């Protein structure tokens, strides 16, 4: 296994998880568990690929992806905030709707995947960093990634800054900690929740763009591969704190990179290695939550 390749892939596979983690933790901190991250990512990726496929414009792809994923965010928050829906089921419905829509559109177009390889600019999106790129070891790891991969790293810090350094961030946290107190202080909690969910949805859309356009240069019906749920696991492990959750996202990205890089060397059991990330997450979740649980001295269980 090539160590530079492995570390570079860690960054590659972590970035969509990071986007979804950042997207999900806003809602999480506003006391909404967004199971629909996966579906929002799916819709974002699908919309971006379709837009690029028909217009050949990357810029339009990004915009359409943002708009569609934001629209799904609006739908989700309308259901969960205004209509008092069971948001676990809403999220699940969005996930199922996303895959169903993707497959339906593929069948209608008569394709098994929407390929963007023929569009020149999509194939070579890697950015060579000016100074870091020339460093011997770090250059190979950090340079040559696509724009949204770098953006995902910035997103973490942006999320941290919004949550802890702006009034909106304080309101979001108030919504989660004690919504009634927020209402009594005149904080528009409904609007804040909308903001948290929609912002999160747009980030998930970025994750979709990142995977479909930048990594695969195509849309395949199962491209999300559980990334949204992996992000939820990262959020749970990291208590919804941006930096801590992101560390877990990196851990899970590393597991995925390990699985894929090992698969190159081990031919026949390569399929089995794909299990590593999912099992690793369950183990990490068990370790983290188990420790948290053992530190509480309340009898019995706390419910969700």
């Amino acid at each position, binding site marked *: 296994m090539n160590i530079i390749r492995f570390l570079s892939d860690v960054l590659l596979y972590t970035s969509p998880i990071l986007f979804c983690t950042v997207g999900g933790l806003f809602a999480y901190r506003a006391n909404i568990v967004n*199971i629909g991250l996966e579906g929002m990512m799916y819709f974002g990726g699908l919309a971006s690929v379709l837009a690029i496929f028909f217009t050949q414009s990357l810029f339009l792809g990004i915009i359409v992806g943002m708009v569609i994923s934001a629209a799904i965010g609006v739908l989700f928050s309308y*259901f969960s905030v205004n*209509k*008092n*829906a*069971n*948001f*676990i*089921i*809403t999220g*699940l*419905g*969005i996930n*199922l*709707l*996303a*895959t*169903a*829509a993707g*497959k*339906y559109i593929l*069948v*209608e177009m008569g394709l098994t995947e929407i390929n963007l390889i023929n569009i020149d600019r999509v194939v070579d999106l890697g950015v060579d960093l000016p100074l870091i790129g020339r460093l011997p070891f770090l250059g190979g790891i950090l340079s040559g990634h696509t724009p949204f991969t770098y953006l995902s790293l910035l997103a973490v810090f942006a999320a941290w800054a919004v949550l802890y350094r702006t009034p909106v961030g304080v309101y979001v946290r108030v919504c989660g900690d004690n919504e009634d107190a927020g209402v009594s202080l005149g904080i528009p909690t409904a609007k804040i929740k909308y903001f948290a969910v929609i912002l999160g949805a747009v980030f998930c859309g970025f994750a979709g763009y990142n995977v479909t356009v930048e990594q695969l240069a195509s849309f395949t019906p199962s491209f999300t*591969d*559980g990334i949204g*749920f*992996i992000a*939820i*696991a990262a959020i*749970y492990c990291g208590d919804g704190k941006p930096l801590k959750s992101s560390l877990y996202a990196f851990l899970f990205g590393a597991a995925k990179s390990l699985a894929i890089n090992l698969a190159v060397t081990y031919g*026949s*059991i390569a*399929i*089995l290695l*794909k*299990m590593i990330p*999912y*099992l690793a*997450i*369950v183990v990490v*979740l*068990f370790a983290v*939550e*188990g420790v*948290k*649980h053992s530190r509480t001295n309340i*009898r*019995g*269980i*706390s*419910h*969700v």
Partner: protein
Amino acid sequence: MKKNDPQRNTKAAVTLVNAVSPVILAFLIGAVVILIARENPLSTYWILFSKSLFDFQGLMKTLHYASPLMLTGLAIAVTFKAGFFNMGVEGQLLVGAFAAMIVGTSFPAMSPVLLVPLCLVTGMVCGILFAAVPAVLRAFFNVNEMVVSLLLNYAIAIFLEYLTSGPFRNPSSGYVSTNMLPDNAILHHLGGTKLTIFTFVALAVFIVMYFLFNRSRLGFEIEAIGYNPSFSEAVGMNVGRKILTIMLISGALAGLAGAGWLMSEKYAYTLSFSGAVGLGWDGMLIALLGAHNPAGIIVAAIFYATLKVGVQNISVFTHVPSEIIALIQAMIILLLSLKMIGGPNTRGYKRIESLLDSGRRKEKIG
């Protein structure tokens, strides 16, 4: 409570409206999608329902298809009742099916009287074992069962894909598939229809579950936990252990569904064993549709089986892609998450109350 209590009638009406209106709405949206595909939604829907409900052979096929759905619907409904989510039904079903396949192909000479129950029980046990992972983590370590059971679905699907394409692959098959079950492990069709014993097994399990949940102490405790887990804990229930029990029951139902579906329909494990959306996820829709009422689960399972059978005719007689059903299903789940009509103090509830009231007054005058 009196038998003709108006309060109770209103509640029943509201439940019905809440269950039926998302279905209608989803079909309307589906109709728009069909129109966009330049097909006639009315004739498409007519084909969808007529051949799977109003035709004897079609109806039997629908009941056959409803059997695993009834079980997966129950598997999810029991966990809903206690207020948490077993999202691993799909994986538990696959494990149950695969285990039944291994047992069935290992003892081809065993008498069917022994082999059939052995396969079904193995499926159940393996479903339980696989459900035990999220269950134990949840009950004793407070790890979120939803995330764990969901991620394990991915892991087990990969594992079974490996087993099917490697050690257990049937070399003479043109596509990736395991060996076929021997004749002794197959549940045969009854009287020239698609129906098998499996349907009756599923119904028997349903009756057992009905009594377990409505007439036993466990059922009462589960409902109490669903309403208020902290209170249940405070009055002395061991909530952790109860959650473990429910998850294991759920896993057993899912495993049985998988084993039964293998033995009555598929006969061999393939990579598309559970279908496009997956029987476990179909169970989610059924549990949501029929959750308020035990009979609701059966009705919902038959309704959904109708769609599954009907969609095979759609692709034969029209140009509408069969994927339309997955789309409608997702829409139904999405719309079911919001209660169209809320509690007693909302506008919709009062409107239904007054509607029923005026109906009763007319009856009196008449």
